[in-house]
């Protein structure tokens, strides 16, 4: 009746039980708060059924933030293991549990923090930056979020019911196949990644069409903010890469559920094919994560240096070069699989070529600052932190791209240090920079600056302590994913420094949570009344903070680069803006269906994990039903009349 789900799935060890109790308490607290403040209606109307990308962006950030918290807890547990499991000691965790934790850590951080962050930024910034009122497909946008949330939920529920995968976040077969891992872990991984992946692909299509079809008049491609360009790069990568993930994970699922032989070592299967395919997705994936961060820094550096971005055209070509090159480097993830000298050399050389446009970007940012007037608010601090860590990580990356060198450091902690340097230094710091930057736009008040600085210093020094020792450990022959190691190799002191580093990072996260709470409390003192708290350059700052649901009452003129800055300068020079003539605005109606579909997707995934096939069938039919219902709705919009627009504008 319930497939392979039995009561035994609920028995967990103390650490997981603690996590589950914590989650339960947090959930009860939030539900209680909603009842106490009578906010259920508000929650339903303003958040759960919204199709407004500004709200959807906030929801992405909330989920990504929660998953970041979980990911850092995973990291703390991992480091605790690494300082206790020496010699004969088992340490804090038994091997399988440790392997689950690092698998969950990687899966969570890449899919639910990384992708969550970039979709949050896209939702929050793209329509505003291009002078549009909405995205191309608002319903699809909401659906993408709910599928993302469903995927995240599957990871969370695996803490309470059953176990998560223990095969590493990329799940190589044969280890992830039926023979070596028949349990539910890999299936949880498969369905959480698959469902979130479908959401990502939908967003890829959505924002691609939005940018290419909905820019305000006059905004040609070369007039767009660089952040928008970097998002185009990321979107093109999503469009090409995510179908590969969908197909590959499906084939792994078919191996496991229907006994197929795509990736089994026998019966004509080919595990090496999985490795090729998963990295053909996996490499573009990491560039999907980093390009938006580059875009953020372009906007932040130029705003906080009070100068236009240096070398705009060069920057655009750098983005295009990076996007194109990231398709032809995937083999560098497995130089050690034995492809032969010429193949390894080709992919290695293609990989190192990416360093050129990346370096170009760094130089252009520095020269944007040159002869500028730099204000070191937290967004700029995060940029400096990025400049330091990402450069170092990038250097390590070029070292890794040389196959014979990689033969010695592949899968070692040197590799771990490299990718954390570029992902934390790049993606995470970029997000934090952007978060402080756009926070006043979204909420209407600024974040507490002092706590932001403390958070930065904790994260930056914590990062250095947590990962610089790992470069050394890799050179000392420490491979990754070890749940224990022999004493007397000189590794312990380095692991202690690394553990201290993660504790510092956790403090940084603590400061950020504190910053949020304090800023909300102090919001009246930090109100942004102009909509332009940083003297910004691009169109998003031309709206109020927060913007009205339709973003712009009058579609702006995008004929200049840094259009808003040009507009402000013209006003300073005495140009009087024309009196606005308001028109009716059509906005999409709210809809609960994206949320229903997300819940149904979660049920579907859960049912497949536990082989509850009747439930899977039922939820699939329900998904079809909801889809057909929505696709039969011929009037999904409502109108704000010109008069109403005029009234709303007058109130601002």
């Amino acid at each position, binding site marked *: 009746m319930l497939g392979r789900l039995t009561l035994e799935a609920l028995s967990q060890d103390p650490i997981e039980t603690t996590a589950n109790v914590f989650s339960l308490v947090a959930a009860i607290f939030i539900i209680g708060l909603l009842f106490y403040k009578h906010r259920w209606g508000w929650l339903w109307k303003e958040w759960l059924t919204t199709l407004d990308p500004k709200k959807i962006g906030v929801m992405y950030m909330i989920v990504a933030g929660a998953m970041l918290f979980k990911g850092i807890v995973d990291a703390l547990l991992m480091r605790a293991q690494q300082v206790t499991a020496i010699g004969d000691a088992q340490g804090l965790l038994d091997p399988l549990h440790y392997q689950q934790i690092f698998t969950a850590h990687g899966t969570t951080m890449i899919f639910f923090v990384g992708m969550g962050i970039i979709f949050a930024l896209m939702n929050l910034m793209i329509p505003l930056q291009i002078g549009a009122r909405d995205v191309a497909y608002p319903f699809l946008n909401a659906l993408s979020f709910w599928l993302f949330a469903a995927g995240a939920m599957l990871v969370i529920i695996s803490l309470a019911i059953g176990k998560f995968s223990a095969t590493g976040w990329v799940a190589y077969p044969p280890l992830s196949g039926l023979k070596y891992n028949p349990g539910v872990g890999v299936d949880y991984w498969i369905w959480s990644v698959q469902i979130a992946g479908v959401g990502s692909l939908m967003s890829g299509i959505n924002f691609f069409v939005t940018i290419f079809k909905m820019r305000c008049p006059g905004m040609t491609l070369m007039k767009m903010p660089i952040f928008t360009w970097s998002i185009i790069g990321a979107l093109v990568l999503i469009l090409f890469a995510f179908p590969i993930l969908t197909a590959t994970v499906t084939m792994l699922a078919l191996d496991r559920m229907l006994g197929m032989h795509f990736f089994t070592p*026998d019966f004509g299967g080919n595990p090496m094919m999985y490795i090729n395919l998963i990295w053909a997705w996996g490499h573009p994936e990491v560039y999907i994560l980093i390009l938006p961060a580059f875009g953020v820094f372009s906007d932040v550096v130029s705003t906080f240096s009070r100068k236009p971005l240096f070398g705009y055209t060069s920057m655009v070509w750098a983005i295009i070069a990076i996007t194109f090159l990231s398709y032809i480097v995937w083999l560098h993830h497995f130089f050690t699989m034995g492809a032969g000298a010429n193949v390894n050399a080709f992919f290695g050389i293609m990989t190192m070529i990416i360093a050129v446009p990346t370096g170009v970007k760094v130089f252009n940012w520095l020269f944007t600052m040159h002869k500028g007037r730099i204000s070191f608010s937290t967004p700029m601090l995060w940029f400096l932190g990025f*400049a330091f860590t990402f450069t170092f990580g990038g250097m390590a990356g070029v070292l890794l791209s040389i196959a*014979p060198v990689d033969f010695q450091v592949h899968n070692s902690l040197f590799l771990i240090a490299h990718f954390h340097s570029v992902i934390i230094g790049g993606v995470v710091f970029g997000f934090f920079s952007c978060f402080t930057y756009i926070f006043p736009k979204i909420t209407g008040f600024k974040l507490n600056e002092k706590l932001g600085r403390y958070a930065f210093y904790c994260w930056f020094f914590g990062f250095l302590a947590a990962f610089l020792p790992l470069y050394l450990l890799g050179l000392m022959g420490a491979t990754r994913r070890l749940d224990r190691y022999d004493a007397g190799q000189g590794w312990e002191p380095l692991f202690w420094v690394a553990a201290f580093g993660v504790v510092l990072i956790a403090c940084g996260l603590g400061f950020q949570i504190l910053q949020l709470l304090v800023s909300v409390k102090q919001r009246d003192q930090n109100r942004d009344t102009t909509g332009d708290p940083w003297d910004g350059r691009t169109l998003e700052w031309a709206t109020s903070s927060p913007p009205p649901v339709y973003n712009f009452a009058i579609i702006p003129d995008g004929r200049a680069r840094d259009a808003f800055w040009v507009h402000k300068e013209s006003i300073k020079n005495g140009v009087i803006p024309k009196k606005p003539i308001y028109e009716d605005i059509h906005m999409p109606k709210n809809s609960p269906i994206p949320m229903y579909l997300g819940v149904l997707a979660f049920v579907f995934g859960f049912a497949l994990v536990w082989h509850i096939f009747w439930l899977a069938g039922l939820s699939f039919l329900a998904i079809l039903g909801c889809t057909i219902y929505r696709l039969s709705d011929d009037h999904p919009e409502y109108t704000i009349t010109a008069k109403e627009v005029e009234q709303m504008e007058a109130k601002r």
Partner: protein
Amino acid sequence: MKRKFKITLLALIAIGIALLAVGLMLRADIPILNPKGWIGVKERRLLIISTLLMLIVVVPVYFLAWYIAWKYREDNTKAKYDPTVDNNILLEAIWWGVPGVIILVLSVYTLQGCRELDPFKPLDSEVKALTVQVVALEWKWLFIYPDQGIATVNYMRIPKDTPINFKITADAPMNSFWIPALGGQIYAMPGMSTKLHLIADEVGSYKGLSANLSGMGFAGMTFIAESTTLEDFDAWVQSVKAAPSGLTDQVYKQLVEPTINNPVALYSLQVQGLYDQIVMKYMER
């Protein structure tokens, strides 16, 4: 003043960390930087050359980042503020061109290095090579010496200054065969046979491990690769041949069963062609 204090503090912390690192490095064993076989030596050479080449770009970046941030900070009214400057063809040419040239040079080293250090390429040596067949199992390493008629688990002895021709497979999930002190690794995959060619330049005892997650007992898959003089090696081979345990098909079947933290085991080889059988096992079905 506050700013200067902060920067000094930062610098001090950075220096402190660097000193710590150097201190640790001097006392610890860093096989990849202190290889004992000339494959590892060549790989290290590539590592050092490429690091130096990249520093040509990275050092100016760090310097510029610090200098520009310092000089053009808001409260430095002495610095010139010029918001009209947003392009410079010469600078663009420099920072597209110079890194481009460096990458070109690196590419040449890479191509050369890939060919010279291809794991499948036999070593150039007048000494006759020794063949060792490696089978990754759950969760131990089986070493078969087909020409010597012996087999061992989690321990390998090789004569120094002798090229070793490793042939590697797995009867387990994917693993990676790695002896950091001697040179790079290569994957051990069921149904496939990869090759690695290494050589030890001196007598010594080196740690080996699996560098790819293969399940619960993965961390315990360490082994010792000991290089000795040729005499000691031959003597050892004779003593193992006389060992009471023999590796038969039956014994092998038991070895395939998952075990953790296997102790060292020595066998005389009682079957022929075991390695090829293990590889073919996956092909035949």
